[in-house]
């Protein structure tokens, strides 16, 4: 007997996991994207120190998301991954180089520039790949009998390149506003300086994507311009967040730019979700069709109900321990 609509519950869990990952790994990937442009080597030390204690935990959400997707929505897992085959490889290779750079950069002296490149390159490639995943999701997949049947590079279109660039700009913005919050002095001044140009870039790219999306997909067009007019609230909220970033940077607030950037991501994300709901493998499969067996979803859910709160408490505690400004020469040498 199926008492609960488990696929729906799981859709919320996975959806929550994805936005947690995007927001949390987003800012530390953004720090990596901005790495080569930092004013000096000391600033790079501080930048890395600002994310060193938390990036590993942030990335755990990706592993959890991958395993959770296999458990709850195997069809999403087994269509997205083959369709994005090359992209997944680039994502993983980027994350590996980045993870190793975190470990070795502080140990290295003469070879430090190599680890700088590994960190910046890995972050940039991984971020672009994630943006391309979003673009591919909007584009949809060529499937037959629940299996991906398209080609290896079908995902690589001008549209996905654009969403990839959009993700780079968005993560860089998360990174720069994070640095405003976590640093001071010259590095903070630099972060203030680059935030508004990054915001402009995000608005331009997101704007193009928004205009383009209805042409990419019929369902989105239908939904945007007919039955669900209430979703127009979301783009309005997005613009309000963007304005809030602008104002708080202008007035030199320290925490607000980061909070407003998170708001920008959340509203954009919700906009994407409602545009596609309930299709998780567009254009053919809904979340109920992509779900695993009821008893499997239940078996894992029972465990997660205990573990997820603990993970959240632990995560919050880690951020609490490392609250406040990061200074150069402090921390992990």
């Amino acid at each position, binding site marked *: 007997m199926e008492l609960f609509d488990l696929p729906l519950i799981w859709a919320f869990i996975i959806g929550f996991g994805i936005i947690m990952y995007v927001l949390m790994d987003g800012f530390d990937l953004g720090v990596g994207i901005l790495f080569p442009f930092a004013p000096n080597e000391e600033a790079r030390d501080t930048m890395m120190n600002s994310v*060193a*204690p*938390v990036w*590993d*935990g942030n990335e*755990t959400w990706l*592993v*959890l998301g*991958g*395993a959770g997707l*296999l*458990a*709850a929505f*195997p069809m999403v*897992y*087994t*269509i*997205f*991954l*083959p*369709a994005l*085959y*090359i992209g*997944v*490889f680039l994502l*993983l*290779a980027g994350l*590996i180089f980045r*993870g*190793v750079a975190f*470990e*070795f950069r*502080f*140990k*290295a002296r*003469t*070879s430090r520039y190599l680890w700088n490149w590994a960190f910046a390159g890995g972050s940039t490639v991984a971020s672009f790949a994630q943006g391309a995943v979003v673009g591919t999701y909007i584009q949809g997949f060529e499937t037959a009998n*629940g*299996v*991906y*049947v*398209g080609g*290896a590079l079908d995902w690589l279109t001008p549209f996905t390149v654009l969403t990839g660039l959009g993700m780079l700009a968005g993560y860089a913005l998360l990174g720069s506003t994070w640095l405003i919050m976590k640093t001071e002095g010259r590095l903070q001044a630099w972060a203030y300086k680059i935030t508004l140009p990054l915001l402009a870039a995000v608005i331009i790219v997101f704007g193009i994507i928004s205009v383009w999306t209805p042409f990419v997909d019929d369902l989105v067009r239908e939904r945007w311009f007919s039955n669900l007019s209430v979703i127009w609230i979301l783009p309005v909220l997005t613009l309000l967040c963007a304005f809030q970033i602008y104002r708080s940077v202008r007035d030199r607030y320290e925490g607000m730019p980061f909070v407003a950037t998170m708001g920008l991501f959340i509203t954009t994300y919700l906009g994407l979700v409602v545009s596609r709901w309930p299709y998780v493998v567009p254009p053919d499969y809904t979340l109920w069709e992509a779900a*695993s*067996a009821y*008893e*499997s979803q239940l*078996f*894992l859910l029972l*465990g*997660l109900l205990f573990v*997820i709160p*603990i*993970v959240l408490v*632990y995560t919050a505690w*880690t951020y609490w*321990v490392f609250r406040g400004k990061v200074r150069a020469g*402090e*921390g*992990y040498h």
Partner: protein
Amino acid sequence: MELDPLILSRIQFAFVVSFHAIFPVFTIGLASYIAVLEGLAFKTENPAWIKLSAFWTKVFAVVFGMGVVSGIVMSFQFGTNWSNFAQATANYLGPILSYEVVTAFFLEAAFLGVLLFGRDKVPAGLHLFAAIMVATGTFISSFWILSANSWMQTPAGFELREGVFHVTSWSEAIFNPSFPYRFLHMALASFLTGGFVVAGVSAWYLLLGREVEANRKALSMCLWLLLFIAPAQLVVGDFHGLNTLEHQPTKVAAMEGNWETSRNVPLLLFAIPDQENQRNLYEIGIPSLASMILTHEWDGEVPGLKDVPVEEQPPVAIVFWSFRVMVALGMLMIAFAVAGLFLRAGGRFARNTWFLQGLRFMSIAPFFAVLSGWFVTEVGRAPWLVYGIMSQAESVTPSLTGGMALFTLIGYIVVYAMVFSAGVYYLMRVLYVGLEDRHDEEDHEAERPARPLSAAHVPFEYGEEKRSTPANQGGH
């Protein structure tokens, strides 16, 4: 030339798994060793235990870091290269792999920081507790992974509906018929790996005359441990073999190089399996011994490869030879453990140059034994992925082309080669600096940095030690 995505995917998965497997098999054993050292330090307050624990914790940090990085790839490969398999088995494997992430990752995330950085910041009891929890976490992790792997070898607790596995009994599926043997065999392999690495490194330090008291204690401990578990592994391996005989007779036939089902089967010491003509060349064997070992009767019946069609036979030569490498290394390990016992009189085990040099060499033996053991069990089940039910050919991603599979295979080899050389190079640096360097570094650490390697306190380049060690005196 047509590239075959199936073969390339098999090579790729074998490469990634083999590369990854050598790290956890070491960290599982080492984590328990560190917990024991912490326990001894807590009880006796002998500084030698703390010195040893601090040093091996550094090594643990480096190896653990590499294991995590190389492990991320695997959970995505089920989807990229084996999507049909993932789709069919997701009802079982999805929850199992997720439980591994949430139970083991959680314990490790929570307590690794305390173990690596908390010695002077938390009470001694809590530090010991953290060490025990990290060791427990590594076992929980291997519990889930081996359950998943064993289920693919001896599937149970499910029914098939329209080509998809549905779990009917979680307890039967998780504790499937080969799981207890595989788990115990792997746990002992981890202890053997940890034990021989610690013994080998301690032997090396003793040869150099570095920190003799602590390293002598470490070596003595290891030799006691190995004296019991090296033979125990032989017994567990035998039971595991009997279990395999019951559930995967073709795999046993390949291990023995036995083509015809027959009695009085000899134990082959040497042979060149000729799969094309379904026979062996140049056989040298001990009469009836394989029958005796497998059935515990001299004229017991041993299954042959010809019981199944040629296309359902695994690549015999790989299984046959990997099995012999594993057993030979196991015998060598027992020999060293027993030699250690004989050298105990008068403490010769810590002075005998031949013995110490041999132990140095033996520190890499468990890794080869573990890898060849995995080759036996994984290659031996070919062509099945879920034994007897789903073949490798049915499991591969339908849209995957040979070119794509080759591209990522080369890609992973390049990425791993770079990461691995940096990691091994750095591990060598940590070993080279040794136990002596604990208290002469400024402690810059914040309360709980999350990066394992920041626990190692060793610079990446040579020639930057803060204090010269006996091995590089006069360098500064």
